[in-house]
Structures are given as C-alpha cells and as structure tokens.
C-alpha cells in the first residue's frame, strides 16, 4: 500500500521535474540583493528578445555561491562588480589592471562584459542643503571642516579599505566618528544628527532623501564597475542570446540604476516590471510583463513547493522503510544507521543546502537532496521502533505458523507497524514543507521565494505571500494525514487502541 503510494508520488514528481529541466536554456543568476535581481531580470528580457529560452534564477545567494555556480556551469552568467572580482574573489592573485583581470578570468573559462555604465562603490554622502551651505563637493573639501560629524557603518569603520585608509588618504580630522547601522544612518543624516555618512553609490535613498555623493577626487575607492560575468562556452551555445544581453554594456547610468533601485525598495515595485519598463524605454523592446497576478504567483510557487516536497518525501519513504526494516532486524547495524541519520538531522538546513551545491548545482536538485536527507530519519526511526514494538507473542505466533520471514513482514509485521510508520511519514512531511522554504536560497523556488524577496525589500506583504501558504500547506498536510491515518490503519488496530482497558 505504502509502496504503491510512494511510487505514484515518485512518478508524478519525476514528470514535473523533467518538464522544468527541459525549459532551462541559458541560465542567468542573480545575487540576493535588489540591484542584482533587477539587472538579472533586464538581462533575461534582452535574452528572450533574441528568441531562445532564458531562465533567471533569482536571489541565489551571496558572491561565493554565484561564483561557484557559474564555474560549475549551473548558471551561464550573472551580474558582478569588478572590485568584487579583484578584492574578494581573486584576492589571492595580483591583478593590477583590467588586462590582468581578463586573463585571470579567461584561465577559468570566464569572461566579463565592459562596464554596464555605472559603478556601485562606497562613497560618502551629505544632504544637498548641507553640502551647498558648507560648499562641500568633494572628499578633499571635508578636511577644511573639522566640525563635521561623521556617522559611519560599522563595517566601513573597520575595513582597512574603509575609514582608516580614507582618513589617511585625505587627511581627515581625527575626531572619532559615530558607528551606526547602515539602515539607520539615512535617518540620522536627514534628521541632522550627523552630517556625513557612508553609502553605496546606487542606494535608492540617495535620490529619495535628496543627498549628494562627494567626489572621490583622489581616487581612493576602488572601482566597482557593474559587469556581466559569463562562461565562454555560453558564447558558442547561445551566441544570439548573449549578444543581445551584452547590449547592456554602457546602457545603465548611475542615476538610472538609483531610480530603479528606488522603485523596488521604496515603491515596492516588482523587479520584473521595472526591468520590462527599462528594456522598453532603452531598447524599444516590448516584452510581455512577467510580473504575474497574486493568484498565479501563488499557484506557481505552490507547484514548485509541492514538487520539492513530494519528490524528496517519496524518495525518503522508498529508502527509509526498507532501511528501517533492515535496522529492526539487525540491531547492531541499526545503531550505526541511526547515528548517521541523527547527525545529518543536526546539520543546520542552510549548511546542508550549501554542501549540496558543489555536488548537484543550483535549482531543485540540491534542495530535494537536502529535504530527502531530513525526511529519512523520522520515517526510519518510526519504522524501526514500530517493528520492534510488536508484542513478542504476536511475532512468535507468526513464526510458529510457518510464515517465511518475507511473508511474515508483509502480512503481520508491517501492518502492525503501519500506524507508527505513518506517523513518521507525517512528521517528515510537515518538517519537509517548512524546510522547503529554504530551497529558494539555492534557486529551487517555492514559498521561500517571496519570503526571501520580502525580507530583502523589507516588504511585509511579500513575506506573508510566502509564509501564509506555507503554514496553510503544513496544516492541510497534517489534517490530510490524520484523515488518511483513519482510512489506512487496519480496523482491528483502531479497535484495540480505542478499547484501552
């Protein structure tokens, strides 16, 4: 019975899985922050204008994850910054100029576009009024105003290439600046509590709060030019698509990027529709608006989420029940199996997901593998304890009747352990549904996608769009299992537990 259900689920999920895989084409990745997602969406629109399938795996994670995904071929390109390449990713190598950078990338089968037209780097900013009043336009102007109060983010204060280096380079006053949280810094600045803060040059707040960034006239800050980083083999596989995407070179200036960031962060507009507008205005390409309605978004995420859960759960059932039977029969091996799966259970889900990426790449597979590992233990443990919990007299009766070990298992032991096994599957399913929200971190989609986006954009409504269906699905699953439990459990067993003396 259970095996039949498991097979059905497995077949169903393999079907949805292969349907998703067939549609991939060129794969674009983006980092887990707004600007990267917008550029990813724009690149996807431009790629689609060339006519081939293009997939955008949004908000995969941080720099390291995107870099690894690109090198392994899980994605074909993603937006990156030259400064990040030089100072973070390739920090171990000496890269004095653009030529050296291109050579270092080529050695790894990668190439980068020319600058997209803007640079996203550290800068110092002031309110326009203050800057005008004091006559400050550049960083060197600051040294003439010892009375100025700095409010700097803790990270900037502590980085060697942040405040310490900047103060030395410009001979700034020694008065110790106030350490602030980056998000609070804007409020401190506009309320007049501080005069100068550090910021990123494309921060949405620059336009919204009427700030100016001071000119880095001694070229202290390294260039963080935005580029498209891509695999050289993508040129061969998708020449037209890539050519279309590379039209972005020089196409986005700083103020345009700031405006787009502001639309996403301050007006809560969908990145896809911001990208659509940009591509229409800049390239006169009209793409269908990919921003879906709420209902179809939820439906799509439900399908993604269900397919993660169903595939991993079905695989876990198919593995854990036989393993549990084995463990019940050989107690010494059982201890080993339980220890291993217990240890897996204690690995934080985020870490487990990240472990999976080098093995399985990006997308549904690593998420399914991690969920599978999490689902095995509850089913395994309940199968073993259910079988071990069978009354010795019943076990002896089955043996004495002359049933072979296999038939004994099928006719007597598994049916008697069924309620316990079922409870294990239920536990696994509920854990699985909750944990699957983390799948969005590795590009698996599902309800985690809007939750992640909501956290990033500080948009509570978007968080709810993922969290509410996820909770509903967990409750629904629990209720469905309770119902199924009543239908599946042999009547005789229900009578027995019901008639406790």
């Amino acid at each position, binding site marked *: 019975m259970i095996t039949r259900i498991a097979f059905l689920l497995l077949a169903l999920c393999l079907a949805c899985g292969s349907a998703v895989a067939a549609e991939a084409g060129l794969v674009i990745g983006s980092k887990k922050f707004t600007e990267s997602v917008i550029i990813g969406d724009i690149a996807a629109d431009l790629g689609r204008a060339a006519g081939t399938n293009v997939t955008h795996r949004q908000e995969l994670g941080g720099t390291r994850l995107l870099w690894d995904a690109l090198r392994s071929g899980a994605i074909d390109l993603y937006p990156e910054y030259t400064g990040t390449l030089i100072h973070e990713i390739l920090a171990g190598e000496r890269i004095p100029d653009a030529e050296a950078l291109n050579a270092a990338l080529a050695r790894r089968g990668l190439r980068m576009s020319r600058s997209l037209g803007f640079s996203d780097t550290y800068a110092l900013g002031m309110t326009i009024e203050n800057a005008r009043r004091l006559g400050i336009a550049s960083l060197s102007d600051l040294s003439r105003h010892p009375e100025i109060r700095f409010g700097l983010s803790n990270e900037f204060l502590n980085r060697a290439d942040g405040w310490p280096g900047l103060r030395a380079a410009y001979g700034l006053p020694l008065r110790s600046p106030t350490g602030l949280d980056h998000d609070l810094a804007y409020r401190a600045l506009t309320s007049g509590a501080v005069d100068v803060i550090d910021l990123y040059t494309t921060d949405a707040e620059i336009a919204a709060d009427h700030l100016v960034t001071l000119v880095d006239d001694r070229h202290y800050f390294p260039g963080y030019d935005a580029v498209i980083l891509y695999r050289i083999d993508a040129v061969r596989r998708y020449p037209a698509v890539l050519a279309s995407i590379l039209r972005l070179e020089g196409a986005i200036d700083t103020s345009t990027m700031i405006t787009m960031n502001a639309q996403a962060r301050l007006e809560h507009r969908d990145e896809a529709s911001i990208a659509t507008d940009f591509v229409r205005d800049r390239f006169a390409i009209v793409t269908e608006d990919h921003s879906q309605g709420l209902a179809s978004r939820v439906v799509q995420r439900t399908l993604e989420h269900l397919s993660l859960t169903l595939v991993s759960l079905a695989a876990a059932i198919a593995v854990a029940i036989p393993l549990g039977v084995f463990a019940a029969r050989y107690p010494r091996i059982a201890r080993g199996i339980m220890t291993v799966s217990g240890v897996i259970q204690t690995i934080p889900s985020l870490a487990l997901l990240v472990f999976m990426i080098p093995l399985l790449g990006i997308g549904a597979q690593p998420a399914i593998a991690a969920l599978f590992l999490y689902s095995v233990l509850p089913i395994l443990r309940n199968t073993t304890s259910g079988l071990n919990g069978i009354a010795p007299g019943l076990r002896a*009766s089955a043996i*004495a009747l*002359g049933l*072979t070990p296999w038939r004994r298992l099928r006719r007597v032991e598994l049916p*008697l352990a069924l309620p316990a096994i079922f409870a294990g599957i239920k536990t696994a399913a509920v854990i699985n549904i909750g944990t699957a929200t983390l799948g969005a971190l590795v590009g698996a989609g599902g309800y985690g996608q809007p939750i992640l986006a909501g956290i990033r954009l500080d948009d509570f409504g978007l968080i709810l769009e993922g969290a509410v269906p996820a909770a509903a699905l967990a409750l629904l699953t629990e209720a469905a299992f309770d119902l199924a439990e009543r239908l599946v459990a042999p009547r*005789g067993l229900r009578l027995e537990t019901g008639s406790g003396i």
Partner: protein
Amino acid sequence: MIEFDAVTMSFAGIRAVDALSLTIAAGERLALIGPSGCGKSTLLSLLVGLVVPDAGRILINGAALSPQTVIAARRRIGYMIQDGGLFPHLTARDNITLMAGELGWPEGRRAERLDALATLTRLPQPMLDRYPAELSGGQRQRVALMRALMLDPDPIILDEPLGALDPLIRADLQDELKEIFAQLGKTVLLVTHDLGEAAFLADRIVLMNQGRIVQDGSFADLVARPASDFVTKFVRAQDRRLVAGSTGSS
C-alpha cells in the same frame, strides 16, 4: 513421535530447560505441568523452533529439527501460544486462514475447513468476521485453537489454552477440548499449571521443576507414588487449593 534428547536451553546463563529428555508417542495425550517459570513454555518454543537449543537434539517423527526443516515442521505442528497471539489487524477468519491462504489453498477448501472447525469448536459463524478486540476471552481462545488446527496438524501443542478464562467458561471449554482431542485422535502436548486440568485432559502427566522432569506418569502415580518431596508438596498445594475452594463456597 516427538523426542527431546538431552536438550538444554539457557537465557542469560539461567537454564530454562536443563538436559531434558522426553519421548512422546504418536497419538499420546501428554500434559506438562509445573510451577510458573519451570520451563514449560520454553520446551514448546524449542519444538517449533522459536528458540534454538544450546545442546541436545529434537526429533519429530525421527527427523532432527534444523534450520532447513524448521519451516516445514512448523506447518505440521498446530501451536497455540500462551495468550492466543491472535493478530489484532486481522479478522478471526483471516487469522485462521492466513497460513492456508499463503499455501495456496483454494477459497472453497478454506471455507469448508473453516466451517468444520467452527462446528468443532462451537464458534458461532458471525464471530468470524469480528476482530480479536471484538471477541470475548472464550471466543478468542476458540479462534486461536481454530487457527492452530487449520492445516490439520499433528502434533497439537497448546500452551495454557484456558489460562486466562473465568472458571465457568473454563470448565465448559475443558469439556469441549476433551471432546475435540477424542475426535481428532492426534498427538497432544498440553501445558497447564492446573493438576486437575492435566488429569482431566491427558493420559500422561510430566511434572517439571527448574528445567528438569521431576516425575513422569499418570495422575494416580503422582498422588500415590510421588518421586520426591517436591512432587508431594506440589500435589498437596493443588489439593489444598481445591479443598479451600470448596469449603469457602459452602
């Protein structure tokens, strides 16, 4: 014919059966009796291969019990475990016919056999569709007996078949069991802790203590020619209970 040949069986160093030899002839009805924990159940478990002896041999009709022969041997033995051991997830009918179904008996043959057994044990037909939890204690024992008898086995070995029943039902069932044994004419090995029941149902009584046979003979032998002090004490203890019981009720 069943032979135990110097069989020893220990649990965690304690000898439950201690170098015990016993031969039971075909068609004989033998009752194993003795205080609780003296090794009666263990002896039956050895016969169906639920436990393997540390030393000694067990022969059924001259063939030694071995891992190769044990499954076939079990199917020829009608074993009723202490407390019945009915499977709670199966109806009475499915409990009884489980093994016959596994052996590929056609539906008709199973139904016919089930009918005959219901008549023999006087179990009302409607009870067959009930689950063990829906049956009375007496009915459960009848179903367990039917299951043991389903494949028309020889020998029949019963471990305290009437142990947990109240006295009235117990007396009824003793009468019925005696009748069933007489009708079947099979070898019977019956465990009981009640001397009266042993004398009533069996021709030969084997009294055990601490894994050994203390006396082997008829009821009259046990009373008139006790082999040891233990036998005298055991018989007197059972006797006193009977006397106390009768004076208490009068």
